[in-house]
């Protein structure tokens, strides 16, 4: 079991959850939204089951819950299946972050938005918010349609205390990806903290989402 929290605010909140529930597995923090780029999802909670050969055997995006009997049954069936000697497939996706490597790539490929985005995400994960903001800005200058770059820039600015600018950048990301519920909720969380703490008001979210969708439909 591996748990990943998509929290732009950093490790503090997810750490509280992990400690409260006494989890025995690692809880990772994805502040830059790396996983929603790699896995192409637009909301949480999600579950992905990967076998010992590194192959995805099950995935459910949005609405994953171990309280759902149908999901548990499917996972139990997969766990009961002997996998034998399936050769490990080459992994794809993003290479492990090392800022030095990312810096070299970004310098060697100054016109490549992906190289700038990789460097920006590495900075953000190391807590280097100012450097991250610079690199996300370069990525966005190179590819103005990149919702990942706009979202990451917003997160960097938020961590730097520039909330107004952060919200503007998150809104730009949401315009590029209007169905991305994670971006939308991050904006709400900052604009309406009272709807999230001490308890999350899901009824309010439904009403708010309908209102915003209606407004976006008219725009």
């Amino acid at each position, binding site marked *: 079991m591996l748990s990943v*929290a998509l929290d732009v605010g950093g490790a503090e909140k997810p750490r509280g959850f992990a400690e409260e529930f006494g989890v025995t597995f690692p809880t*990772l923090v994805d502040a830059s939204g790396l996983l929603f780029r790699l896995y192409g999802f637009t909301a949480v909670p999600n*579950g992905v089951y990967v076998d*010992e050969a*590194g192959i995805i055997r099950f995935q459910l995006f949005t609405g994953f819950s171990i309280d759902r009997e149908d999901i548990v049954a499917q996972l139990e069936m997969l766990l009961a299946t002997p996998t034998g000697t399936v050769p490990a497939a080459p992994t794809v996706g993003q290479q492990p972050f090392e800022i030095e490597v990312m810096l070299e790539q970004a310098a060697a490929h100054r016109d490549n938005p992906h190289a700038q985005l990789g460097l920006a995400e590495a900075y953000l994960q190391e807590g280097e918010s100012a450097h991250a903001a610079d690199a996300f800005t370069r990525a966005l200058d190179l590819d103005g349609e990149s919702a990942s770059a706009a979202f990451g820039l917003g997160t960097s600015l938020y961590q730097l205390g520039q909330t107004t600018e952060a919200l503007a950048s998150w809104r730009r990301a949401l315009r590029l990806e209007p169905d991305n519920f994670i971006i939308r909720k991050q904006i709400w969380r900052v604009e309406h903290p009272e709807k999230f703490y001490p308890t999350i008001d899901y009824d309010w979210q439904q009403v708010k989402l309908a209102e915003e969708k209606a407004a976006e439909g008219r725009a």
Partner: protein
Amino acid sequence: MSVTLERPEVGTAAPDFSLPDVYGKRWSWREFQGKRVLLFMWASW
């Protein structure tokens, strides 16, 4: 314009990544190679 996100399909290799945990320790997906993993993605909000 909406960006189309590519989603890895069942039966293909899971993408590699590396992220810090809540205590700052860095983990790589590769460390879990050879094990069965349920990857749970959530948010505290």
